[in-house]
């Protein structure tokens, strides 16, 4: 289901049993994915898990060793010429020609998509405006800042209004403001039955953006579903978390709350923090307030925390995404 509730027919991407090795290194070992039209699909995984390899296969840059992949109904290996007009790609590093101006870059891409000279000029102006690059339109891309290059690169991927947009770690290295701007762009793409296939190392990003998420590790998809499904299945529990105004009371309060808590009570004496599982949800909050109030204990903070994708990743792989990424 996309954000507009338009029913989009046909699978946009279908991947069956794709393997790919580089020499002795197995990059992909048996990938199966189906991506419906009109959704944002996030491939989540640490560095070296095979995300980029899969994107390169889907964008006709690389051939799989075995298995099949279709994009927009066309086989990427046998009909690459039919796949290319309907896709847009923004890779991990901005792919802009530094000797050309921003405007020339986009016009060139338009011409190479065969949308016509007039349309190319029109589209370039439109996209430069949209990505707030109009003022720099006639400056060479060489003079652009990192963030501007990223935006120009993304604009280039959107020139032909592709029905499938592939983004390889699109927000890596972006400042928070640009990142949120990019999220808006990605969300708006999923309307009109266009799909976005993106890779990311950021759990938060996948959570915020994606209709469906596949978690990838060591060349395999190890879990797939909606963000909620993933949290439900493997994300662990809802917890209640509080911080005391007076840290010295931590141990005493933790003891007090033992009888309310349905599970192990964790305490952090230095921070004055206490947390425990709260499967019942908000009802436990009233109990806590009542109990502590009776003892004259003051709370600085009190709330419930929902399971995050971090928890999902941790529970499936046994380590956090950051730990794994740090190995590279």
């Amino acid at each position, binding site marked *: 289901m996309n954000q507009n509730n338009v029913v989009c027919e046909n699978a946009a991407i279908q991947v069956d049993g794709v393997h790919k090795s580089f020499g002795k290194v197995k990059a992909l070992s048996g990938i199966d994915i189906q991506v419906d039209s009109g959704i944002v699909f996030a491939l989540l995984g640490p560095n070296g898990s095979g995300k980029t390899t899969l994107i390169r296969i889907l964008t006709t*840059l690389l051939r799989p060793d075995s298995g099949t992949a279709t994009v927009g109904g066309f086989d990427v290996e046998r009909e690459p010429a039919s796949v290319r007009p309907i896709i847009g790609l923004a890779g991990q590093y901005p792919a802009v020609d530094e000797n050309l101006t921003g405007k020339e870059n986009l016009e060139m891409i338009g*011409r190479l998509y*065969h949308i016509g000279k007039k349309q190319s000029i029109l589209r370039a102006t439109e996209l430069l405006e949209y990505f707030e690059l109009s003022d720099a339109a006639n400056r060479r891309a060489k003079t652009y800042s990192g963030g501007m290059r990223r935006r120009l690169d993304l604009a280039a991927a959107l020139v032909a209004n592709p029905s499938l947009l592939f983004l390889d770690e699109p927000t890596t290295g972006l400042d928070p403001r640009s990142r949120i701007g990019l999220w808006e762009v990605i969300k708006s793409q999923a309307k009109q039955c266009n799909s976005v296939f993106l890779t990311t190392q950021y759990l938060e990003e996948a959570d915020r953006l994606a209709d469906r998420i596949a978690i990838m590790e060591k060349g395999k998809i190890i879990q797939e579903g909606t963000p909620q499904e993933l949290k439900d299945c493997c994300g662990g529990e809802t917890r209640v978390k509080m911080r005391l105004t007076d840290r010295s009371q931590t141990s005493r309060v933790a003891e007090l709350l033992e009888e309310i808590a349905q599970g192990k009570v964790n305490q952090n004496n230095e921070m004055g923090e206490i947390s425990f599982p709260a499967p019942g949800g908000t009802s436990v909050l009233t109990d806590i307030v009542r109990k502590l109030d009776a003892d004259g204990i003051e709370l600085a903070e009190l709330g419930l925390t929902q399971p995050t994708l971090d928890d999902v990743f941790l529970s499936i792989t046994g380590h956090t995404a950051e730990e794994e990424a740090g190995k590279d």
Partner: protein
Amino acid sequence: MRRKILETLSDIWVMTQRDVRRYLRLPQLLLTNIILNVVLLILFNYVFGGAIQTGGVAYIQYFLPGFLAQSVVFGSTQTSVGISEDLSKGLIDRFRSLPMARIALLSGRVVSDALRYLTLIVIMIGVGYAAGFRFEAGFGPAFLGIWLIVLFGIALTWVGVFIGISVKDVETAQVAGFVWVFPLVFASSLYVPIETMPSWLQVFAEINPVTPMVDTIRGLSWGTDISSSLWKILAWDAGLIFITLPLALRKYRLLTH
């Protein structure tokens, strides 16, 4: 089919524009070319000019036609570097993911390089004229000669494209693109008559494509017979393009890095 051909031509044109803009915006690329050639021309004319016996012909008359061919041979070595530079950047992935004709990126480079050679040749003729060179047979044959040199340049550029796409890093391309042109230029009829070389080197000089190129352009400038050398150089041009173009294109299609 017709649409496909038109699209391919349009793609080549778009890529040519890109490469021409690169030359216009990085004028040092062409400028170093020009300076190198002017310096060499002056050195060869005034240092060796008095010593080399060329049978009564003024040395500038003897070597300038060949020198024009040489400027193109040296110029083509930049192609390998340019191509490997393109391949080492993320831009190549974008181009390869676009519905553009596979041949367009490489051809655009070749066409823009041909324009660069043309510019270079015209400038070198101007410098030659200042140093006393004259097209004795008039401008008609000279005009034909210029285009033959450009065609030779195109053939060599496809060799450069193939080298650039094969070596994959810029530093190697710099050396690999340059090293093979020295024997071509010097072991030919360009600077000295072949008869003055040892016999084993004469064999190489006879086969060397620079020799028929130089003989042809020299004949066109002097107004002497070129029938035998003209066919040899045209065969070389056709042969080089026929072999290196498909090889380069195949490499481009199968790029995986």
